[in-house]
């Protein structure tokens, strides 16, 4: 009798677990993105629409026509394909990246230098200085509105250890990272005046700035100046026409 009970329990566990597997719901993705640690980690290189049976968070992913689109830095998760260096926040023309007709502009809120696997569309909203892309256009309300919530993506990346791009070149005039009007409430400077360089005709101030929650790194650059850039580079994808902005 006891052995029958044990057999029953074992069968229940086996059947239960297989049912749980069979019931794992498909989650839609589009574009390259990290694979959940529970599924082995690493990167999924499927560029078109596809499905997995693991979920996506709401900070590193945005909805694109019902699919999860990754807006973070794939290099942090082991991506080894062509990559492009960006500095600071910027829009992502998702439909251009994934190559469909669903107009969609999302925003990357990663502070400082980071990578993406695509270049931005050609046009006036980005300036490439050295090898890095800087967003220099007037940010739309959609960007500003979502900023307080989405900027928390930096808390995800701060502890990640990987080779980040190094950008020491002067930011171009109009760069979003120098916009004090987008700084948010109650800014507290923790390390004021960490670096003040006065190159020929320009001023550059780097400071670690923290708002109550979450924290951000703000680079303030005025004027022009010399210098260099490292990391990144790029060949590959990207470019295309500008699309409408999506408000969330």
């Amino acid at each position: 009798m006891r052995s029958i009970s044990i057999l029953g329990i074992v069968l229940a566990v086996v059947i239960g677990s297989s049912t749980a597997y069979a019931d794992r719901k498909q989650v839609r993705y589009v574009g390259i993105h990290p694979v959940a640690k529970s599924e082995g980690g690493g990167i999924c290189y499927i560029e078109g629409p596809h499905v997995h049976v693991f979920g996506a968070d709401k900070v590193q992913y945005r909805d694109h026509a019902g699919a999860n689109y990754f807006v973070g830095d794939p290099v942090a998760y082991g991506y080894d394909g062509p990559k492009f260096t960006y500095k600071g926040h910027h829009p992502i023309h998702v439909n251009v990246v994934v190559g469909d007709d669903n107009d969609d502009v999302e925003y990357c809120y990663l502070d400082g230098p980071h990578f993406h696997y695509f270049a931005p569309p050609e046009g006036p909203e980005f300036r490439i200085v050295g090898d890095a892309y800087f967003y220099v256009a007037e940010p739309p309300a959609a960007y500003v509105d979502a900023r307080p919530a989405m900027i928390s993506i930096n808390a995800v990346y701060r502890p990640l250890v990987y080779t980040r791009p190094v950008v020491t070149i002067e930011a171009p005039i109009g760069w979003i990272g120098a916009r004090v009007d987008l700084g948010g409430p109650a800014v507290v400077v923790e390390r004021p005046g960490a670096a003040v360089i006065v190159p020929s005709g320009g001023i550059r101030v780097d400071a670690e700035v923290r708002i109550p929650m979450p924290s951000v790194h703000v680079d303030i650059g005025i004027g022009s100046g010399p210098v260099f850039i490292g990391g990144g580079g790029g060949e590959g994808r990207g470019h295309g026409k500008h699309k409408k902005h999506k408000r969330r």
Partner: protein
Amino acid sequence: MRHPILLTMIAGLAGLVAIAGLGCGKADDKPASGGGAGGSGTARDALVEAWKKAGLTPSPMTPATVSFGKDCQSGTVNNVDVIVCVYPSDADAKAAEQAGLEWVGSTTGAAWSKGGVLVSAADRRKTDPSGRTINQLMKLSP
């Protein structure tokens, strides 16, 4: 007297027109049918051939009975399960994409259509954790 070279050119041109006429189908051309396992010259065969040329290793495709298509064959490519269904029109193939995703089941996969051909790929054996094979399959679709 007519120039012999001119006559030769006219004859050649007429021949080309005749050959082109033979090659043209009716205006209501449909996507090529699968033509059965091992058939040649079909959309499905062309697809499998493209996969081979790209260095992938497709298994022989065998007829498959599924609810979302009458002309379907399945097999594997680099141990990723695939099913390729041929439909009378692009719209029919497009309409079957959701069913193609359901065929994938509880694993990583994709379903896409082009030119009246639906392809579903499912990594049921977990042999493509980076998705590179599925990505290649997608990109090689005609």
